[in-house]
């Protein structure tokens, strides 16, 4: 379980996150929706400390990190949390100078300090999971966007994180490639890994989510299970958002 309390984050004078509270249940998939600029990416990036919150708390297992302007977070605390999370980016961010297999092995060898043989086995196993073993010796630019994103998922999974964070994993893809990526994520959801997904794919959100958070202007303004939220919410801002997105 992953809990955040009173998270605040500003960029200059602009408050991107304002008093955000949420609980992410173990083994569940949480989807975050909201209009552009509502703070979804910022929240996700706060969860693995790519952005460090100005205030608030993040708790996982028996560990609680407290943020304040006065106390700078210790680097080892930061790394510890990051090493329990994996992240999938909108633009894939594979390492272009490494082959597909090396992309996956990199973290296992450099960060986890496991030996090359184990890294290789893990790479192959996770490439199998996303159906790309035959591409293992290619460089990222030789793959389609959908394939690159599946490699990115394999790279994240191979480090055995407690939580996988996805920031609009299909937004940069041609429409015909979206399905293959969403299918991988759906399959993963069934394996009991904890996932937190920012997406604009509403149909997918309804299918895959155990829990949905709706963000607006830096706050979580509504949440619930997908059928509740998508069909029976009384929140005017959410209704407006869903209307806009469906037309």
């Amino acid at each position, binding site marked *: 379980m992953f809990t955040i309390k009173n998270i605040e984050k500003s960029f200059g004078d602009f408050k991107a996150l304002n008093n955000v509270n949420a609980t992410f249940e173990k083994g569940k998939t949480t989807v975050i929706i909201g209009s552009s600029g509502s703070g979804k990416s910022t929240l996700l990036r706060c969860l*693995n400390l*790519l952005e460090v919150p100005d205030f608030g708390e993040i708790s996982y297992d028996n560990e609680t990190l407290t943020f304040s302007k006065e106390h700078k977070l210790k*680097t080892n605390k930061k*790394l510890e949390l*990051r*090493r329990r*999370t*994996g*992240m999938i*980016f909108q*633009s894939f*961010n*594979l*390492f*272009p*100078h490494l082959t597909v297999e090396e992309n996956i092995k*990199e*973290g296992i060898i*450099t*960060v*986890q300090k496991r030996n090359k043989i184990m890294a290789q086995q893990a790479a192959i196993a996770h490439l199998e999971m996303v159906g790309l073993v035959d591409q293992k010796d290619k*460089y990222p*630019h*030789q793959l389609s966007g959908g394939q690159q994103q599946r490699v990115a998922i394999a*790279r*994240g999974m191979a*480090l055995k994180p407690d939580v996988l964070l996805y920031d609009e994993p299909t937004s940069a893809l041609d429409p015909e490639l979206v399905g293959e990526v969403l299918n991988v994520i759906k399959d993963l959801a069934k394996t009991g890994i904890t996932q937190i997904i920012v997406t604009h794919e509403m149909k997918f959100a309804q299918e895959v989510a155990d829990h949905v958070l709706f963000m607006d202007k830096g706050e979580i303004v509504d949440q619930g299970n997908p059928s509740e939220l998508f069909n029976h919410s009384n929140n005017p801002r959410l209704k407006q958002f869903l209307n806009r997105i469906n037309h």
Partner: protein
Amino acid sequence: MTELRFERISTILSDSFIPILQAGLKFTIPLTLISFALGLILAFLVALARISPIRLLNEIAKLYIWIFRGTPLLVQLFILFYGLPSLGILLPPFHAAVIGFTLNVGAYCSEVVRAAILSIKKGQWDAAYSIGMTSSQAMRRIVLPQAFRVAIPPLSNSFISLVKDTSLAATITLTEMFQKGQQIAAVTFEPLWLYIEVAFIYLIFCTVLTYFQGKLERFYDNKLA
């Protein structure tokens, strides 16, 4: 040109070719290689200082770059070789030359290295951090290898310039290629032909280097697209 004169010149040129080339192999090339290697290390450290959020490091780096890019290399060499002895610091010519060229390469190339590091997209850092890397791991394993490719053409240019700039070491008594050519020209009274010969040997060196630069670039392009 009479036949006799032609014969004389061709004898001088063929007799001097080996001594000049030897001066190149003994001084010009080692001077270039050592200065460039040390200069790159310095350039990298200065680039890091320029990128670092620590204000003091930043300012020191800027000051260094400002001084060494804003003053003639020839004057720097004179200060090192003819000036420092009055402070009791006597440097052999080769050492003085290495120090001078290293400091110069460090100043010019630090900007190249800095630009190359900054040209790597933020997403690469994000991805490196997201798999749990420390900043130095991200720099070493992810950013530098990509920045290196970006930096190859401008660094190669600096390298080739350095080969030619080492001729300035002649002015601080180092018997590198140009100095050797001068010496022979002085006793044979054939400056035109001697200096053309020297120029020709520099040209060969630079052509070979350009060829390897191309190879290196293509090697990386095949990997990176």
